[in-house]
């Protein structure tokens, strides 16, 4: 099992995405190529059929011209238009005006022989215009044997070609993915190393400091230990934030029902030492416990960043209050506050986060991304030199 997977990072997912994208494009191209060839084949078959039928239609046309000639000669005696069960006809004069037709036929002068709506048409220009007929159109029904045969062939060869191309595509894909797989292994190794090299010692420091019974230490040493604790936690936070930002898309969300009160209390305890350095008091105000369905790590990251900002931008000996109510939690500080015009800017950044928000720190971008993922709305109330209240509701 890949280390990345155990860390909650799914590279297989990105491989699958690449695979899917490549396959979609490949299939689309294959379908286009098959369609083009099918179209060409269909037209060739149609032309072949028309050429085969041409002699029959020409024979009919000759017969009809003979009948028309007779009618022309004896027009004063009879006006019965020559008809035949095998074909239909229409005659048009040189100004394309219909003289007579045995059925509904339109004149098309762009082609001599053509297929339209299941009928084959032959346009003939006789040597003499009997009864003024410059254009004679003979129409017969297409038996469509060729059409069924062509359709069968297209389906059969299309399917065979498609399957063949699919196999080729799969082989090509395996070849293309090889460098990506190698890169994944390399990255996997790198993550394995960095986690061991960086995260483990930091976590060790934090864990060991927590185990020290500070009451037995003298005040000087206690202060030093606290500073080490703060430093280690800060490094740990930065490490987690960076990991989150870099691997954001590859982090698997393990969504679950989170007890917000419990989470708030956990994070307050974690941040107490950091707050203490600035003599800040953190209070929690649980109005009503609530539950959020999300990934615990991500919500905790969001809360950490809000708390971290509240500490960072607070005054010395200030206070922070965490409120928990129905489908909402908020972090209120007694800090420097944010100017009115800046609140809208920050909120805009929350809505449309982009990479240029460097001035607001990476914490904000993480909050924004997590809020976006879980469709959380973020509301900022602030008064300069009084404090800021950031509320998260869902």
């Amino acid at each position, binding site marked *: 099992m890949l280390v990345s997977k155990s860390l909650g990072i799914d590279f297989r997912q990105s491989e699958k995405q690449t695979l899917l994208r490549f396959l979609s494009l490949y299939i689309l191209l294959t379908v286009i190529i098959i369609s083009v060839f099918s179209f060409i084949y269909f037209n060739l078959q149609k032309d072949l059929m028309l050429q085969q039928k041409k002699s029959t239609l020409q024979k009919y046309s000759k017969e009809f011209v003979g009948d028309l000639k007779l009618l*022309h000669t004896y027009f004063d005696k009879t006006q019965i238009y020559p008809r035949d069960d095998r074909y239909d006809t229409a005659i048009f004069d040189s100004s394309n*005006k219909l003289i007579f037709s045995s059925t509904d036929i339109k004149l098309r002068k762009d082609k001599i022989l053509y297929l339209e709506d299941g009928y084959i048409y032959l346009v003939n220009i006789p040597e003499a215009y009997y009864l003024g*007929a410059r254009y004679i159109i003979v129409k017969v029904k297409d038996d469509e044997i060729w059409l069924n045969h062509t359709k069968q062939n297209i389906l059969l060869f299309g399917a065979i070609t498609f399957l063949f191309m699919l196999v080729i595509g799969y082989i090509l894909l395996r070849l293309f993915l090889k460098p990506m797989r190698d890169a994944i292994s390399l990255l996997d190794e790198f993550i394995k190393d960095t986690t061991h090299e960086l995260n483990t010692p930091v976590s060790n420091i934090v864990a060991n400091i927590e185990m020290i019974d500070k009451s037995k230490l003298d005040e000087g040493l206690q202060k030093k230990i606290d500073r080490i604790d703060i430093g280690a936690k800060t490094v740990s936070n930065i490490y987690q934030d960076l990991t989150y930002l870099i691997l954001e898309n590859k982090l698997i969300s393990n969504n679950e029902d989170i007890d917000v009160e419990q989470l708030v209390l956990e994070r307050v305890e974690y941040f107490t030492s950091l707050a203490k350095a600035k003599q800040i008091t953190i209070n929690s105000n649980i109005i009503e416990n609530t539950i959020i369905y999300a990934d615990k790590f991500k919500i905790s990251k969001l809360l950490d960043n809000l708390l971290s900002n509240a500490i960072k931008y607070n005054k010395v000996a200030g206070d922070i209050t965490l409120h928990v109510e129905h489908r909402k939690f908020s972090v209120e500080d007694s800090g420097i506050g944010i100017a009115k015009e800046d609140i809208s800017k920050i909120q805009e950044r929350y809505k449309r986060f982009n990479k240029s928000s460097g001035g607001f720190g990476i914490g904000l971008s993480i909050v924004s991304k997590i809020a976006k993922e879980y469709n959380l709305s973020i509301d900022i109330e602030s008064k300069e030199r009084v404090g800021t209240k950031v509320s998260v509701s869902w």
Partner: protein
Amino acid sequence: MVKKIVLVLLLMVSFLGADVYENNCVNCHKNSPQSIDKYFYNYLLVYSSETDVKNAMISYLKYPAKETSVMSDEFIESFGIKKKTTLNKEQLKEAIDVYWDKYKVFGKLK
């Protein structure tokens, strides 16, 4: 009222046209070896459409010539070609229109 006047005028014109045709065409052709309709169908055989047939007829009547005739060489040799028309432009047009309406194929085939 206006409609009535227009109708009367139209009828008069058509009668006048019929008169021109009857007096100037049929009168002579009834004595000719070929009935008058045969000439019409010969024109149709060569010129096909109404406009082309009428133009060809008018042109021939104005300037009769062996080369532009639609009749066979034998016929021309036996009976010669007709004299130049004495009708003016309007009269000629009226006569030809009547001639066309009388023998046209449109609406006659069954």
